[in-house]
């Protein structure tokens, strides 16, 4: 029945949308972690200002 196609896509849109957003959040966290690591390295190398 063709209305099942609508049902299928109706649900998958929601699942896919949320999954994509979660993936974006994960990517942002990874990028942030990398940045923080690089900052920590730079701070440990630099001498403290007097």
């Amino acid at each position, binding site marked *: 029945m063709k209305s099942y196609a609508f049902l299928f896509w109706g649900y998958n849109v929601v*699942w896919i*949308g949320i999954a994509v957003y979660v993936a974006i959040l994960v990517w942002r*966290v990874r990028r*942030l972690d990398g940045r923080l690591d690089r*900052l920590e390295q*730079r701070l440990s190398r*630099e001498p403290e200002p007097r």
Partner: protein
Amino acid sequence: MAKRSSHAATALLLAIVGVLMLGANFMVFVYAPDEKVMGAVQRIFYFHVPAAIVAFTSTFVMLGASIGYLWTRSRIWDCLARAATELALLFCLLVLITGPIWAKPAWGVWWTWEARLTTTLLLGLLLAACVMVRSYADSAEQGARLASVLGIVAALDVPIIYKAVDWWRGQHPVVFGPGKKDPLAPEMRATFLFCLLVFLLLYTLLLVLRTRIACHEERARDAAETVAARGEAG
């Protein structure tokens, strides 16, 4: 090390919510009965309506956070506002996509300019504008300030837009209405409430995560500026 454990906790929470959503899917497709008039397609309602509720709840959160930011100028409010704006936009988009997918088999048309759909469309545009302002602004502080003002203006407008379009048109299937006998069978109502609960849980989790990310990104940016300044001075 603290990072790893907080990542693990977050992943666990996401997994739990994911399982709950699978449970919701089960309830929707197996537990809830077919609707008399529209048939199987009506089941989209169980995700479409909670998504709409989340979108408008998030708009409300954005309103509060924007007022909070302008009042206190403390960053946490701005981070919360930013997260709420993004999430409201996401769920708005989900509503705007699932709505026509439901409308076509149910009403025969993809789109109609009735109150709820129109309000959601305009809200989505306004939220997109708020996000645009943040990225176009010269400085983070200016972006935060302008986005907060816009957020307040936009959120206040939403009920007005709804009422205006409602008086002008009206076609949305009213499932819950004042004085109407509740047409939902108890299994349908239970399914709906469960889906709503899961969506709200998902929203809360995403909101907390996104707010934290925003705060950390701000701090990382500040730290980077400090390190760069030290590098130049030293």
